[in-house]
């Protein structure tokens, strides 16, 4: 606890900070008994009806604290299993392997992970071990965060949700591993994101906010690990912030008039829906003003950073096939249609 700043101590609805991930998973299991089954030590969340014959298996992993990502995306039309690590910590290779043992069907598996050192390293080890055991596995790295200049070093953000949905739909259609992997890579390649943080969240294990913002400053270019942004900028209007999030996305993903996109505004956990709509409103105006059609949309808390206040914008350039995969039926705790 930050005893120097008691007013900034973060109060949380938790018991022992060390039990947060496990107890939260227990609550998730009790909240969705007809969709999910949770395995503990090592932790993974699986579709209740897997493994499914004839279907490519999708497994995603990331640290906890991004809920509903990824555990909330397990279910028909999306993931077969999700591996939640400790808070903000990529899961270990044996989580992936145990999940694979539990849910892998006969068509091989695709691992989805965000492009962070931890994600890449652990998936890399998991892939090696899985292959040694005879599994046929592929992986896709999501790296949509344009706050980082070098694409190879870009973090995975909101595109993860879109990759999981569309690859999940392709798998559900019975497409083979190489096709599902290609869809996942296509979605990742056609997506860009950028986030802004207004107030730091707090990890239960830290007990206080990760950082303090100055009274009139905010953090531009944040990821989803509660970290500071790439730049500190003065607090400004939602419209101006929306522009500052969209512009670097468009610099990197040049959209032509007539292009059709999926536009997503995800809250980071501590920002109410009211504000997300205000951001989406201007985002929509800006895109339509360029002749870009907002063909599909997602506004809400879909990939979060504990209780950080702020949001991230994700833009995905759509093709007719991607639209069809997006619209395909999905039944998970967090996406359902």
């Amino acid at each position, binding site marked *: 606890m930050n005893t120097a700043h008691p007013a900034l101590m973060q109060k949380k609805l938790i018991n022992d900070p060390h039990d947060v991930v496990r107890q939260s998973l227990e609550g998730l299991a009790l909240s969705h008994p007809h969709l999910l089954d949770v395995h503990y030590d*090592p932790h993974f969340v699986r579709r209740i009806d897997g493994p499914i014959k004839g279907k490519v298996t999708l497994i995603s992993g990331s*640290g906890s604290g991004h809920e509903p990502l990824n555990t909330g995306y397990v279910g028909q039309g999306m993931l077969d299993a999700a591996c939640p*690590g*400790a*808070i*903000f*910590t*990529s*899961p*270990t*290779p*044996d989580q992936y392997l145990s999940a694979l043992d539990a849910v892998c069907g006969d068509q091989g598996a695709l691992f989805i992970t965000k492009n*962070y*050192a*931890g994600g890449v*390293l*652990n998936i*890399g*080890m998991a892939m090696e071990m899985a292959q040694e055991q005879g599994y046929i596995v592929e992986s896709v790295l999501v790296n949509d965060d344009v*706050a*980082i200049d070098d694409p190879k*070093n870009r*973090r995975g953000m909101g595109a993860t949700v879109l990759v999981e949905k569309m690859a999940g739909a392709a798998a559900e259609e019975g497409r083979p591993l190489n096709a599902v992997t290609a869809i996942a890579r296509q979605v990742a390649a056609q997506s860009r994101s950028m986030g802004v943080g207004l107030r730091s969240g707090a*990890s239960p*294990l*830290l007990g206080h906010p*990760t*950082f303090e913002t100055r009274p009139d400053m905010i953090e531009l*270019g944040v*990821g989803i*690990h*509660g*970290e*500071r942004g*790439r730049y*500190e900028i003065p607090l400004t209007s939602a419209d101006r912030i929306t522009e500052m999030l969209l512009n670097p996305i468009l610099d990197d993903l040049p959209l032509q008039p007539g292009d059709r996109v999926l536009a997503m505004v995800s809250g980071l956990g501590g920002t109410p829906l009211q504000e997300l709509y205000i951001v989406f409103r201007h985002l929509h105006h800006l895109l339509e003003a360029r002749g870009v059609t907002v063909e599909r949309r997602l506004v809400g808390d879909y990939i979060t950073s504990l209780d950080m206040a702020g949001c991230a914008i994700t833009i995905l350039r759509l093709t007719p096939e991607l639209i069809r995969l997006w619209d395909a039926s999905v039944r998970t705790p967090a996406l359902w249609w």
Partner: protein
Amino acid sequence: MSQQITLAQLKRWLLRYADRIDQEASYLTELDAAIGDADHGVNMQQGMHKLRQRLLNMGDPNDAGLDVSGFLRMTAMTLISSIGGAAGPLYGSFFLHAARTAPHAATVDVTELADLFRSGLTGVRQRGKARPDDKTMIDALEPAVAALEQAAATGAEIPEAMAAACHAAEQGMLHTIGLEARKGRASYLGPRSIGHQDPGATSAYLLIQTAAEAFSENGVPE
């Protein structure tokens, strides 16, 4: 015969490291809060807690049928399966590669120690693709291994060699303060990462420091 490090000492090293990590967990996490995601202390604690349990359950490593290589390999697998994040695979690779080079014997001398540390470091570098001055654990490990090698080459005894390694690791750790991160989460901050000590370099320094302590005491019973 030159001085030898026994399996009991290796075990004592890692138990001591587990304790040190417990003591420094919030310090490491605060370092990570400044330029990362505030979990490094927690992650390391999680892994070292698991390792401590295994080490304590194991009793005498000799009786468990382990040689140095096997002992290091067991350590690697435990850390890989319990730390997660970036540090898990990296420290895991350190011990895995060290195990590959380590002799199938019950002890190692200072030259062998330098070799297996070098090999461990190579494992970290191959896994993480970081280079010196990227502001990572490499910046503590690299000078430590170099100092150890040099000491071994000049015929130093273990306490002396390890003291040199420990000093070099500390310098390397402090050197990270002035660096701009090019690898790991801190790299996302770009120039804003300057002025902060790297958490992984800090836990790596503690790894060398506890090794220096454990390898310099002789025959202290468990």
